[in-house]
């Protein structure tokens, strides 16, 4: 699954995107954040406070309960500060 990161998530992970195999047991955005958090020090730092992290599936905002099945691209980013 393609995962993309923006702003300080991108900086903390030092990558803009990655392609990873996600275990079948990980079914929602919230579970995916918990699982990513366990993948190493930089992930633990990046996903330290999942409450402030926003997510999108295929470029549409989703809540932590959203199912990830069938997604092409999942994005994680901080609250937006445009305009």
């Amino acid at each position, binding site marked *: 699954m393609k995962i993309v990161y*923006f702003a300080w998530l991108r900086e903390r992970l030092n990558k803009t995107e990655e392609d990873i195999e996600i275990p079948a047991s990980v079914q929602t955005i919230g579970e995916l954040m918990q699982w990513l958090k366990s993948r190493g020090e930089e992930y633990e730092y990046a996903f330290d406070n999942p409450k402030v992290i926003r997510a999108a599936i295929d470029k549409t905002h989703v809540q932590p309960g959203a199912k990830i099945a069938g997604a092409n691209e999942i994005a994680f*980013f901080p609250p937006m*500060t445009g305009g």
Partner: protein
Amino acid sequence: MSGETVTITLEPIDTNKESKAITAAGGNVGALVSFSGICRADEKGEEISALFLEHYPGMAEQEISAHVEEAKRRWPLLSARVVHRVGRIEPGETIVFVATASAHREAAFQAAEFIMDYLKSSAPFWKRTEGGKREAWVEANEKDERALDRWK
């Protein structure tokens, strides 16, 4: 309605050109509202030399377009235009430009505010400051999120 509605650009925004394009929408335009969001020389009391704007390509255009479409459903707009700049932006330069045209002023004002409120809290852009004591990501403003409540 003709021309592009939403543009994201690395280049400086020519607000004069954008305003002209929108008034060309036709003979029934009686009210034109435009909003420019401008880079300030300070961010939360600290002097900065520039802002750096990052965005999620594809999603940013899609989110703004969806909210412009929603504005067109809610108000009788004759034309609407949003230009958002990304990259390095210095104080005094325009970050975002929104223009709405309608037969009467209420629709044009309301639609411009609606588009700006949504853009502020749901379009995927992130600001980093440059030149302050530390380079830092700008934190989201709770007030901006509350601003959405009035449109519900």
